[in-house]
C-alpha cells in the first residue's frame, strides 16, 4: 500500500505505522495549507471492544523543510493521552455517545500540539479531544455532526487541527499487485496471469470500507513558508522511547529515554516499492537529509526492471533503458530533489540539491477547484501529486506510469515512451471508495461504522 505495513518491523507496530501523508493548498481556504498524516493501517470498523486509538507512548510529528536543506525548520508534535473513567467495565461506551463530553464514553483520548521552530517550542493546544471511533448508529449516532465536527479544534495560533478516525482515502488493488505484480486491467498481458488464462478485469479496492487514524492540520501558508521560498518539503515520523520494560508487576509498561524514530513517510510508496526489504527497517530510522544512501534505488528502481519481465513485449523501450543501466534522473528529481525550473513549463517544486525523500509542495500554485485530475501533474494538473499530494490523487497509477518511463521523456526528449506506460493503472478511481471525501477540512471522509460494515 502507500506505506501501510511497508517494512517488517513497523508492520508489527500499527499504532506507530504511518500509512499516508498528504500536503496541499486547501481548496476551500487557499491561504492555508493542509497537512494530513495517517497512522494505523487497515482498521476494520467493527474492531471492538477495544477500538483503535493513537499511542500514548508514541510521539507523532509532522516536519516541514522551509529552507531547502532537507532538515526540519518547523515541526508539529502531537502527544496523546488516554483516559478510562470507569475501569470496572469492559465497555468502550456504556450508552450512546452523543457528544465529546458524553459520560457514556469510557475510553477517550486527548492530545496536545506543540510547534517547534527557530524561536523555540510553542504549545498551541492541549487537552484537545479526539472523537470516538465510529461504532454504529446506537453507540455513535449523528457521528459527523455530533462527534467528528466538534473534534476540529482551533489552535492558539489560529491553525486548525483534527486527530481521530477517518475513512481510508487511499485506493489500491493490493490483492492483485502483490500477486506477482499483476494489474487486473492488464493481466491478459501479465506472464503468469496469461498462463492461467485470466482476462483483463476491473480493479478491486482492497481498503474499501476500512478506516485509518488521521492527524490533520490546516495552517496559514505564511506559517510554514519563508519569504521568496514557496516550496516546502513535508514528512511525518513516529517515534518511541528507546527503553521499554514490560512490567508484569505494574499495570503499565515502563518507557524511558529519548525518542527514537521508528516510522517515517513522505512520498507514497517510497519505502514500500523503492527501498529493498533488507533496508526498509533501517530507512524508517533515518532522517531525510541522509537519503543519498538510498538514491541508487531511485535511480535504478527494481520495479522498472520487473515490468518488462512480467509483461513481455509490452515495455520494450523501458527494457532497453534498464539494459543500458541508465540512471533515472526523472525519478531522482521527482522523489529526491523536486522538479527544477525548465523541465515542465511554469512549474517547479525544487527544494535544492540535497537528495531527500520529501513530499514537496509549491504553495504558490493555487488549488485546482474545477475538474482536478486524479493523475496530478501527469494529468496536466500542477496542483496535484507530485506537487504535494491531495486526498484523491491516484498515486498508484502516477507512480506506476512514472516508473514505466512516462516521465523519463522530460529529461531525454529523444526517449520513446512505451504505449502502455501512459495507460498503466490498477484500475481504480475515487468512486471505488466506500464513501466520499469531504469538501472541507479534514477532507478525508467520515469513518465507516462497524454496524454497517461488520466484515
Amino acid at each position: 500500500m502507500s506505506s501501510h505495513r511497508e517494512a517488517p518491523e513497523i508492520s508489527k507496530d500499527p499504532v506507530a505505522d504511518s500509512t499516508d501523508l498528504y500536503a496541499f493548498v486547501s481548496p476551500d481556504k487557499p491561504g492555508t495549507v493542509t497537512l494530513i498524516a495517517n497512522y494505523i493501517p487497515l482498521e476494520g470498523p467493527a474492531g471492538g471492544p477495544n477500538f483503535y486509538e493513537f499511542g500514548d507512548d508514541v510521539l507523532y510529528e509532522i516536519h516541514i523543510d522551509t529552507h531547502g536543506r532537507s532538515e526540519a525548520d518547523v515541526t508539529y508534535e502531537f502527544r496523546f493521552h488516554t483516559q478510562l473513567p470507569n475501569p470496572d467495565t469492559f465497555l468502550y461506551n456504556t450508552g450512546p455517545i452523543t457528544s465529546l463530553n458524553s459520560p457514556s464514553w469510557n475510553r477517550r483520548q486527548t492530545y496536545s500540539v506543540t510547534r517547534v521552530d527557530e524561536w523555540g517550542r510553542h504549545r498551541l493546544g492541549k487537552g484537545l479531544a479526539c472523537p470516538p471511533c465510529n461504532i454504529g448508529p446506537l453507540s455513535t449516532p449523528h457521528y459527523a455532526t455530533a462527534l467528528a465536527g466538534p473534534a476540529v479544534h482551533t489552535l492558539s495560533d489560529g491553525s486548525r487541527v483534527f486527530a481521530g478516525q477517518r475513512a481510508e482515502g487511499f485506493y489500491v488493488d493490493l490483492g492483485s499487485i502483490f500477486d506477482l505484480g499483476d494489474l487486473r486491467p492488464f493481466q491478459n498481458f501479465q506472464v503468469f496471469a496469461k498462463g492461467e488464462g485470466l482476462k483483463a478485469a476491473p480493479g478491486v479496492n482492497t481498503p474499501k470500507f476500512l478506516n485509518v487514524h488521521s492527524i490533520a492540520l490546516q495552517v496559514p501558508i505564511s506559517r510554514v513558508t519563508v519569504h521568496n521560498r514557496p516550496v516546502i518539503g513535508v514528512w511525518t515520523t513516529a517515534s518511541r522511547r528507546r527503553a521499554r520494560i514490560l512490567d508484569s508487576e505494574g499495570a503499565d509498561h515502563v518507557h524511558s529515554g529519548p525518542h527514537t524514530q521508528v516510522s517515517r513517510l513522505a512520498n507514497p510508496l517510497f519505502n514500500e516499492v523503492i527501498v529493498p526489504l533488507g533496508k526498509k527497517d533501517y530507512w524508517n530510522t533515518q532522517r531525510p537529509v541522509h537519503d543519498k544512501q538510498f538514491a541508487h534505488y531511485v535511480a535504478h528502481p527494481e520495479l522498472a526492471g520487473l515490468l518488462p519481465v512480467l509483461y513481455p513485449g509490452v515495455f520494450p523501450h523501458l527494457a532497453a533503458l534498464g539494459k543500458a543501466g541508465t540512471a533515472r534522473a526523472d525519478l531522482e528529481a521527482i522523489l529526491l530533489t523536486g522538479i527544477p525550473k525548465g523541465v515542465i513549463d511554469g512549474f517547479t517544486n525544487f527544494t535544492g540539491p540535497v537528495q531527500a525523500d520529501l513530499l514537496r509542495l509549491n504553495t504558490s500554485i493555487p488549488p485546482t477547484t474545477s475538474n482536478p485530475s486524479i493523475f496530478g501533474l501527469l494529468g496536466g494538473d500542477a496542483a496535484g501529486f507530485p506537487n504535494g499530494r491531495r486526498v484523491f490523487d491516484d498515486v498508484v497509477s502516477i507512480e506506476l506510469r512514472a516508473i514505466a518511463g512516462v516521465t523519463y521523456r522530460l529529461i531525454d526528449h529523444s526517449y520513446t515512451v512505451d504505449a502502455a506506460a501512459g495507460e498503466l493503472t490498477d484500475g481504480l478511481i475515487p468512486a471505488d471508495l466506500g464513501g466520499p471525501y469531504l469538501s472541507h477540512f479534514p477532507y478525508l471522509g467520515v469513518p465507516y461504522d462497524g454496524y454497517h460494515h461488520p466484515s
Partner: protein
Amino acid sequence: MSRIDDTASAPVSAEREGSLLSRRSVLQGAASAGAAGVAAAALVSAGLPAVAETKAPARPAGAPGMGRAGESEPVVVHIRDIAAGEMDVFRGTTHIRVRDKEITARLVRASD
C-alpha cells in the same frame, strides 16, 4: 532550528563518560526508581545497600510522562559491553552512556 530536546540529547550524551553520571548516582537512581529493570533487580541480588530498600516493585503511579526526567521517573540501564563496562542509562527523556567496569561487573555477577 534546534531539534526537540529529547532526540537531540542522544548523540551528545553518547559521548559522555562516567564522570557526568557517577556510579553512586546510578545506584541511587536505580534505588529511587525501584523499577529500573535490569539495574534494580541485579543490584538487589547483589545486596547493595543503595537498593536493599527497594524490595517492593515501587513503580511510580500512573503512566510515565513524556517530559524531562523527574525524581520519580524510573531509570533503565542497558549494559552494552560487559568487558568495556559500557552502559546506556535512560531516565525520563534523556540518555547517557556510562563507562564503569566495576558496576557492570557487579551487575553481571548479580544476574547470574
